[in-house]
């Protein structure tokens, strides 16, 4: 599953590298993933660059991750409410599971996701760390 074409991931660099999302032009709700229609009924969105600051809404620890993350287990994954309002799921690094709470403040960092084997492309993107 991780030997997908590097080109497919390359098309998403702007979202993954920069934490770019969408803002409803009518009610100002923000989304990380593209939505066809806002719950307010509006169909128009503008792009927004998130600040990368947020709070943990839910979290868990992964012990048996997918093959590409095997050497990184255990690691924490959280649902994060960004200060701009959007919700995002991401890995939370540089912390122990015991250190996290609902409401823990986090900030976005640029990190390595995984490599496609020894010869493949290295994939990067946004993860989070507890604010320090």
């Amino acid at each position, binding site marked *: 599953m991780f030997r997908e074409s590097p080109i497919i991931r390359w098309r998403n*660099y702007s979202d993954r590298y*920069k934490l770019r999302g969408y803002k409803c032009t009518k009610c100002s709700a923000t989304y990380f993933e593209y939505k066809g229609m806002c719950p307010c009924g509006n169909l128009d969105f503008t792009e927004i660059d998130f600040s990368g600051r947020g709070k943990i809404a839910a979290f868990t620890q992964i012990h048996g991750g997918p093959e590409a993350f095997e*050497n*990184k287990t255990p690691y924490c994954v959280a649902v994060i409410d960004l200060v701009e309002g959007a919700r995002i799921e991401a890995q939370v690094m540089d912390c122990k599971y015991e250190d996290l709470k609902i409401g823990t403040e986090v900030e976005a960092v*640029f*990190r*390595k996701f995984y490599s496609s084997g020894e010869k493949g492309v*290295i994939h*990067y993107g946004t993860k989070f760390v507890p604010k*320090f």
Partner: protein
Amino acid sequence: MAGIVGWGSYIPKYRIKAETIAEVQNADAAAIKAGLGLTEKSVPGKDEDTATISVHAARDALARAGIDRKQIGSVYVGSESHPYAVKPTASIVGEALDIGNAYMAVDTEFACKAGSATIQINAGLVDSGMIKYGLSIGADTSQAEPGNALEYSAAAGGAAFIVGPNSESVATLDYTCSFTSDTPDFWRRAMQAYPSHAGRFTGEPAYFKHVSSATDMILKKSGAKITDFKYVVFHMPNGKFPLRMAKQFGATKEQIEAGLVVTKIGNTYSGSSILGLASVLDVAKPGDKILVTSYGSGSGSDAFIFTATKKITEAQKKARKVNDYIARKEYITYPQYLKHMEGIHQ
């Protein structure tokens, strides 16, 4: 001349103590610590490499510079641990910083001075009018073969500088020059995971000769005396070499201390002397003069004289300081350390 418009730094959170390594190497920890003048070193997280360290430091540099990021006309990243053998780190950094596509970019490599050299390159480009701002980065996740003496000092970290017009600078670049010669003191051949070095030869004809020659050169060129500088930074492969250099030039403990980060985090290679510079910029006051001399094996030294301007005080508040990163730490065991370093190559 051009100057520094913004600066940023980054040091990973993880540390390993000299004692922990000495135990595995069956060595005398006290003797090692006294001999190298350091107590612990930084270790990258399992998902950190030269590209991620560079982006982190550069985001802080941008926050301090407060410039339109699309006006950055060049990105140069110096390292001896670029994630790819072929494929630039600089373009990953440029993309992550969202600076658009109209920028020159290349990775540089010159052992521990690959970062400082990019400040000279960008200063030349700014002064010639080819670019308005250039991004200079030095970062490393340096490798040391398990059991080798380098294992105590080879650390991870980096610093980034936005080089731009003198009038916008937090520190003007007043002079710079280099001393270079073909000296085989330290190297890593293609496809080799770890570097090799010429043992004690790395001192006298290598580090000391080049650092002192470049420093002599810039003092002569500028007419400055060592007492003119509030801060002096010499490249820090360990905690001992820069102190010996300071003694030779008559620099005091007060002049050296602010930039002497090696004692707390080890040698961050391409990030080393410039993390010293960043650490000095974190605390410098307007008018303070700063002398920096880097060293890269193979061999060369770049010397710089900067003067802090009135803009520095405001800029200092806009991002984290080197000491903030030094203070954030978590100690790891030797098996954890091996796991962290293994991730570097995956």
